[in-house]
């Protein structure tokens, strides 16, 4: 029962490993918890999930896998207490009735039928043979024949509460494929950090001093080293105007996060696609432009190039000379893109459009191909992958 759960978690993208799974078994073995579904849920979560962003996925898998199987938790912790089995109208089933349950078609079928009946039934029910209730011959409801049967609405059991815990999905907001705030962005950007020592030597280098002193036959020889700085250099190209208006907030956040994270951050704006010139100040975009060639000359290939844009435009704006919506461009956008890519070996494109839509927009597909698939959605998870690609 637990092994399929483990694989389902993996499938759902929760990074679980054998070590963690064994830890869970060990904890069960050591009787860390009472025989309760809710406790099991908390324990499993503490063992298997190591990041609150995965809590929601875990909840979903848990709900899907264990829905209805709560009775089995008792079996998990081995000995079954007597009162677990006590029911207020317990009765043994005849062979005939058993056969009828089997005729419903096993476990899979059981769940399916249950769902249908739940939809039909609303009130409380007891003793019947179809509706969900207690002590019936129907496989659904508490204290039925099938120990793997489905417990529903058993007022005196705390398990009922348990079912809610994971169904509530309180951690939905933490799922990192969804929400993006300045803080998330910062964390993702931090991946890029690379500390290096440069500048004036201000710190005492203890190891160096000892080494030098030893070589000096015991006469003190002080060595200094410079402080550590984040040495990553970033060149940010931001798309403005037009279809990007929908994404202003998210881009602002990205920008403010990047600002505080990187000491060497240079930014330029473009409209829809990069051509022969870009600009630094959006208010004076028409008067004060910087030739793209100059940007390439000023900032060396050690800069990491990040484009931010939705890449949503007419395809001719990329492929044709004179295709730009704003001015006559002598060379096609694709040519400029190739030049930039050749100059900056580390580059990515961040796209605020949801990734599902990419395939339906020809210009996005075109841009992606130009970048050799180095395009990532502007979500924490996408940002994370982008930063890995940049390293």
């Amino acid at each position, binding site marked *: 029962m637990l092994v399929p759960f483990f694989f389902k978690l993996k499938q759902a993208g929760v990074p679980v490993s054998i070590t963690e799974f064994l830890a869970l078994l060990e904890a069960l073995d*050591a009787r*860390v*918890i009472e025989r309760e579904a809710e406790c099991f849920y*908390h324990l499993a979560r*503490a063992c298997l999930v*190591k990041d*609150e962003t995965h809590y929601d996925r875990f909840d979903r898998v848990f709900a899907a896998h264990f829905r209805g199987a709560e009775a089995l938790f008792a079996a998990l912790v081995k000995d079954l207490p007597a009162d677990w089995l006590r029911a207020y109208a317990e009765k043994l089933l005849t062979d005939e009735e058993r056969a009828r349950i089997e005729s419903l078609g096993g476990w899979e079928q059981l769940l399916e039928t249950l769902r249908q009946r739940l939809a039909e039934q609303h009130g409380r029910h007891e003793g019947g043979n179809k509706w969900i209730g207690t002590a019936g011959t129907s496989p659904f409801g508490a204290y039925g024949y099938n120990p793997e049967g489905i417990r529903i609405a058993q007022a005196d059991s705390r398990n009922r509460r348990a079912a809610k815990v994971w169904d509530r999905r309180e951690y939905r907001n933490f799922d990192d494929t969804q929400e993006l705030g300045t803080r998330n962005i910062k964390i993702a950007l931090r991946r890029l950090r690379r500390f290096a020592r440069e500048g004036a030597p201000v710190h005492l280098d*203890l190891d160096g001093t000892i080494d030098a002193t030893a070589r000096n036959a015991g006469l003190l020889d002080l060595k200094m080293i410079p402080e550590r700085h984040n040495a990553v250099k970033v060149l940010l190209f931001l798309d403005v105007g037009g279809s990007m208006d929908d994404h202003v907030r998210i881009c602002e956040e990205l920008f403010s996060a990047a600002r505080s994270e990187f000491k060497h951050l240079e930014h330029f704006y473009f409209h829809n696609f990069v051509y022969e010139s870009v600009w630094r100040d959006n208010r004076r975009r028409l008067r004060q432009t910087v030739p793209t060639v100059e940007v390439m000359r000023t900032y060396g290939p050690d800069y990491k190039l990040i484009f931010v844009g939705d890449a949503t435009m007419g395809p001719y704006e990329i492929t044709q000379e004179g295709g730009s919506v704003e001015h006559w461009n002598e060379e096609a956008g694709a040519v400029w893109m190739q030049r930039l890519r050749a100059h900056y070996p580390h580059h990515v494109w961040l796209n605020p459009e949801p990734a599902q839509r990419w395939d339906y927009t020809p210009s996005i597909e075109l841009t992606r191909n130009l970048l050799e698939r180095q395009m990532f959605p502007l979500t924490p998870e996408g940002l994370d992958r982008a930063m890995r690609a940049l390293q």
Partner: protein
Amino acid sequence: MTNARFQGTDRYVATDDLMIAVNAAVILARPLLIKGEPGTGKTQLAQEIALALGRPLHEWHIKSTTRAQQGLYEYDAVSRLRDSQLGLEGVHDIGNYIVRGKLWEAFESDVQPVLLIDEIDKADIEFPNDLLRELDRMEFYVYETRQTIQARHRPIIVITSNNEKELPDAFLRRCFFHYIRFPDAETMTRIVDVHFPGLKRELLAEALESFFRLREVPGLKKKPSTSELLDWIKLLLAEDISADALRDRDHRKSLPPLYGALLKNEQDVHLVEQVLFLSRREAR
């Protein structure tokens, strides 16, 4: 191994899930990684575990410059160098210049101790990786004296993180993990009760209401947290502000009294003022 279970203390309200995570970590003697919003009692948890189980507590506070080695031991080369130039006696024994770190202290403890590694995310990215073997096997090797230090009792290790850096997978795999959720109104009432037992019901209800409403204001840079609520209530009591006053001023008209305890930056104060202003206009 111990049978004692952690169930919160008279000063600390632990939710069911937190208790399970703590007990799992205690029983299996594995580190427990705690995350959560600032001010939800992450650091305090270790202190309370130590208190509840009657164990000594060792605290290791991490800074951006902390290295893993400092938790184990440090070789004080400079004082040895000085001593050697002065020709002192102890110079020949390198053991005299090994300074024990927090982890070593915890390993040497006579009873199973609680070790708090606070704000592990403040340190360098490699920091947790450097502690893998130490936390896993609970032993380390001292190169200078060629001895292996082994834990007499596997300490109960509580690690807190504020999520500033991602922790490596290999490290996470060795820990239990718990995310302290922001308490709901019911838990919060219990928490306040624990800290201010004699608090009047109305005042508490009013205070909690303003507090949760404040937290709901979208776009706050720093949402007020449990510790801020407790500070605020302490202030309310000290200033002798009654529930009526709180209710009166409240009516979504102005900032709650002594809001400085709850809102910690200017932009947030402005934001809340604006929201209040808008709702006031709507009410008219």
